[in-house]
């Protein structure tokens, strides 16, 4: 109890002694872990390089200016590819995430012993593996190109979309579903009239949100050969042509800004 009697006066503390001790202990452990990890950082870092970094940075900046605007001409196709990868990938993910979400949600899953754990595992597996890793795998198997990129984005995004979607499904208003069931509707009709309308706004919002994030992720898939503007970035850095690199960065910046604007507008319109 945060309150004690000590002689005549009543003492008040914010937390009881045990809880306070537990909190201090937790903080101590946290700090210890951090200090230990920081030591590992120090061991593994050549501090000389770090100290040299500002000079390197200035040097790099100087070489990046002025941007080689003529390079833009060879960038239009990669930008288009990047947008294609993001859009088709998100589309694929959203289509697949829909059924998986229903299998994963506690209130709509057909079997909570079998289908649900599998769906949950698919979700975790899909989102634990960065889209770049997926791209790596797919390029090794299917060869480089935009197709691998689309699949990579798709596989990664299934987990994200399905997770948010099944959380939305679990939060629906059951009385609405009850009402539709009471009319004698079949399972599919209950889905269509009772559940889907409730999650549609969330569904659309999640899809657009993921699309926005995917634009950013698609831009880098080229680093492992899966198409998009990452390819140019990789080659420009390898050939140390900094003026091209700055153009690419600006193009990525512009694409991200535009896609964020579009995404915000669409989500605003949906609400």
């Amino acid at each position: 109890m945060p309150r004690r009697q000590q002689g005549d006066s009543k003492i008040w503390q914010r937390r009881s002694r045990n809880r306070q001790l537990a909190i201090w202990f937790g903080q101590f452990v946290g700090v210890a872990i951090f200090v230990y990890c920081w030591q590992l950082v120090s061991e593994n870092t050549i501090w000389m390089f770090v100290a040299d970094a500002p000079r390197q940075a200035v040097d790099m900046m100087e070489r990046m200016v002025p941007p080689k605007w003529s390079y833009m001409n060879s960038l239009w196709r990669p930008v288009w590819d990047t947008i294609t990868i993001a859009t088709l990938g998100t589309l694929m993910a959203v289509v697949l995430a829909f059924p998986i979400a229903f299998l994963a949600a506690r209130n709509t899953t057909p079997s909570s012993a079998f289908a649900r754990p599998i769906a949950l595992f698919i979700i975790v597996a899909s989102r634990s593996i960065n889209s770049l890793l997926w791209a790596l795998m797919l390029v090794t198997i299917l060869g480089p190109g935009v197709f691998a990129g689309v699949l990579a984005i798709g596989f990664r995004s299934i987990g994200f979309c399905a997770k948010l979607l099944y959380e939305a499904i679990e939060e629906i208003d059951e009385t609405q579903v009850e009402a539709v069931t009471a009319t004698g509707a079949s399972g599919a009709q209950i889905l269509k009239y009772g559940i889907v309308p409730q999650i549609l706004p969330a569904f659309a919002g999640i899809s657009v949100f993921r699309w926005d994030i995917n634009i950013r992720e698609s831009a880098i898939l080229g680093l492992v050969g899966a198409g998009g503007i990452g390819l140019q970035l990789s080659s420009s850095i390898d050939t140390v042509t900094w003026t091209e690199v700055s153009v690419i960065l600006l193009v990525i910046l512009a694409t991200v800004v535009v896609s964020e604007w579009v995404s915000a507008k669409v989500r605003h319109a949906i609400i």
Partner: protein
Amino acid sequence: MSAPRTWKRPPFIERPLLRWGLITGSTLFLAISIGTMEVNWERVAAGVPRAERFIGSFFPPDFTSKSTDIWEGIIESLWMTVVSTVIGILLSIPVGLGAARNLSPRFIYLISRGILAVSRTFPEIIIALFAVKLFGFGPFAGIIALSIGSIGFYGKLLAEDIEDMDPVQAEAVKATGASWFQWLNYSVQPQVMPRMIGLAMYRFDINFRESAVLGIVGAGGIGATLLTSFDRYEFSSSASILLIIIGIVMVVEYSSGYIRKWVQ
């Protein structure tokens, strides 16, 4: 007798011009996208046996042959995550405070929002590319990249949470004559804390997953080992690394749910 009234469900988008415009536009876009996507079907066909081999190597996965490399890489990814999450969150607190419209003067607000926008535009791996050029190969570059990414992510959400807080609770504390820091500690912090702790765990999760990838550009973590295993088609090692990553993410997710409940 007049004709019977029919009812048709109103379309989702009312204005016909907008509706048809969107439908034709998106169909056109999809057609062109799919059309320009060059798929080398022969290559895909050739890849099927490789795919089978890959999937096959998950049952069972090989944890032993490259175990030292793998464990070293995973541990490195883990401590990279810890350090960058802590540093990132600590640095994002002042930036987040500055980026809250109800808290700071316009000048500071604009600068803070600018910092957040810059940190968020580029994926961490691009930042890592540059960090490697500046700081040399190794996990330090990765930590820089992840910290910057964390600042952008966490700072923006912190600013939004502060902007959503109940102004009357804040006004009441101010009316007692509290100093600015006391005011933060007694009215802003209690309102914002629960959600921000959950978000900190989420960012930890994201940072770990990113740290597994930064090694591809030389910024430390398990990424480099993973890249090598794919390049050499040593799928059994790849499978084991992937499974470990999935496992750690599951543990983090589970404990984050537990901690979030405890904070409530």
